[in-house]
């Protein structure tokens, strides 16, 4: 056992001493990733805040046909109107984000109960154009006001035009509903990242050793091939665990940054009361998601279900990178695994209605995904989990044996 730890320590310290790689990984995990998450959100919030809070100015063609509407826009929706002859031209020239074309006789036609069309012109190539929503809301509110007046004139109730309402009810439990959202993404993300995170380490410690000619001196020592492979395997798994820990910390940092941005949003434009999402707004989404709960046992089983798959992945990566002549060749063989991981994530989305049988849980990786899904939705069966664990461990042991077998083949070790 001590030899395995010696091999593990050697591999790990070699990687840790690669300062450039270490610094880059730390910068990515603790600065770039949180920044990548927070910066666009902050930018979006600043922009939205500005667009929603400032007085908007729009060009209108035919203001004379709708004086009441123009007054409503200015007084109730804080929208300034500029009279123009050609709204579309001004928007095409990027002078304004949106405008209105009022047809002749607009207000007369409304009063006589005739149908009339108001044209809202916006530049829809601007995906962040909040003005369109703001204008639509203002116009709808004006229309609702007119409708209410009409109903009142005929002495009709407010819900006269709404004979019945539709109330939606969720037959699934809150845990099932939220679990199904989580199970669409989480297993795929965990497995895809888990399988790809160890790749670099597997290549460096195997194909890299062959390439740098550092493997042969070790082969002359009494260290057995099994000890060597197990030491390297532990090093790869350590790398994967370190990756998950740094990813977890990175997400925590990003969330803290996001919350800080939300709380500080007012200071961007000097306004304090704007209609942008507040932290409470996120809490209001909770009823949609329900109150999600997962038992501590399910969390532990979820984490344990990942380990055999990671062992399987790391062993296959070690076997392949041992067989490769050099690092480039190893990456050439292993990169498609990343692609397969992405496919897995898509497969999960398509699998939503799939009802698995017990034997499905013995299929490598797929069985683990099914089990993860069951654990997240709180619908797991002990028999299915046992089958998955046993099958995954058997596959992992087979993959480790494959890696050891590779290390025993001289034509593989000296394939340069």
């Amino acid at each position: 056992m001590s030899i395995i730890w010696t091999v593990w320590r050697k591999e790990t310290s070699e990687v840790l001493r690669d300062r450039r790689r270490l610094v880059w990984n730390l910068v990515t995990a603790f600065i770039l990733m949180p920044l990548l998450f927070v910066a666009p959100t902050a930018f979006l919030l600043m922009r939205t805040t500005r667009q929603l809070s400032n007085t908007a100015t729009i060009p209108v063609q035919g203001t004379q046909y709708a004086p009441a509407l123009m007054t409503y826009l200015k007084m109730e929706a804080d929208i300034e109107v500029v009279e123009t002859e050609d709204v579309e031209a001004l928007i095409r020239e990027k002078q304004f984000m949106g405008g209105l074309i009022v047809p002749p006789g607009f207000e007369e036609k409304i009063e006589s109960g005739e149908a009339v069309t108001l044209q809202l012109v916006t530049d829809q190539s601007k995906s962040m154009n909040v003005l369109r929503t703001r204008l639509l809301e203002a116009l709808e509110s004006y229309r609702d006001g007119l409708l209410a007046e009409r109903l009142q004139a005929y002495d009709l109730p407010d819900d006269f035009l709404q004979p019945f309402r539709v109330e939606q009810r969720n037959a699934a439990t809150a845990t099932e509903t939220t679990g199904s959202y989580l199970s669409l993404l989480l297993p795929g993300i965990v497995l895809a990242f888990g399988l790809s995170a160890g790749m670099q380490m597997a290549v460096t410690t195997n194909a890299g050793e062959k390439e740098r000619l550092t493997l042969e001196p070790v082969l002359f020592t009494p260290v057995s091939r099994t000890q060597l492979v197990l030491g390297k395997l532990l090093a790869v798994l350590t790398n994967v665990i370190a990756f998950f820990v740094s990813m977890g910390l990175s997400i925590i940092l990003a969330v803290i940054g996001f919350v800080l941005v939300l709380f500080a949003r007012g200071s961007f434009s000097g306004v304090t009361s704007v209609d942008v999402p507040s932290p409470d707004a996120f809490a209001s989404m909770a009823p949609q998601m329900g109150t999600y709960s997962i038992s501590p046992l399910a969390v532990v089983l979820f984490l344990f279900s990942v380990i055999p798959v990671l062992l399987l992945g790391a062993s296959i990566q070690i076997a392949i990178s041992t067989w490769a002549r050099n690092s480039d060749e190893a990456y050439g063989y292993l990169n498609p695994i990343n692609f397969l991981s992405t496919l897995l994530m898509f497969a999960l989305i398509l699998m939503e209605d799939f009802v698995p049988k017990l034997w499905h849980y013995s299929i490598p990786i797929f069985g683990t995904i099914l089990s993860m899904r069951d654990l997240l939705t709180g619908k797991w069966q002990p028999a299915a989990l046992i089958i998955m664990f046993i099958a995954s461990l058997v596959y992992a042991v087979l993959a480790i044996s494959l890696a050891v077998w590779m290390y025993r083949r001289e034509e593989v070790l000296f394939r340069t």
Partner: protein
Amino acid sequence: MIEIENLSKDFRGKRFKKVQAVNSVSFSVGDGEVLGLLGPNGAGKTTIMRLLGTVLKPSDGSARVGDFDVRQYPNDVRRVLGVLPEYWGLYERFTPREHLHLFGKFYRMRGPTLENRIDELLSLLDMDEYADRPCKRFSKGMSQKVALARALIHDPSHLLLDEPTAGLDVMSARQVRTLITRAREEGKCVIVSTHILSEAERLCDRLVFLDHGQVVAEGTPTELCQQAGVDSVEDAFLTLVGREDVELVA
């Protein structure tokens, strides 16, 4: 004692063509003896070293290192053997001391025994000055010494040294030769693979000439000169190998 009997090794070459790297080679080396393996590039010297080091498996024949057969007891063979490979294979981010530590642990050495042995080797090979510097920017001589110290860390009774003085400056080469002489005096069994004839003549008790994976001649330098009817080992080699195109350093 190292004994090799009808040892053969073939590889699968391109298009599955069989390549005979070592062909029915036999020789033995006693304790307290230094044997030189001489031959041009591709003669099979490194393959023999790898077969004795149990990194490769023989296709035919047998070999024993000390009391252990290389096929049956590879782990025991590796325990009594110190190997300086053709390529040093140093970890560039590790210092010489860390290399010795790591390999000492591979030989299950621990505590003061390992520490004392490391200090002894660092001083013996005059490496104290750079013992704690990463090997990344080491010269050939410095790297060769680290690799040599690594081979000697467990004080093996048998040594396989592949080109031990190749690329070394005069001082370093002399230090290595002194070390080999000392190993002989301590009763160790040493095989030196080289193509530097002057060094082989000076260092080795007996020489084995190899060509195309086969033993061409074997004996003391004097015996080989007599056998070829010439005055120098270089001429003896060229006469017995029967080739003029080989690259040798006199």
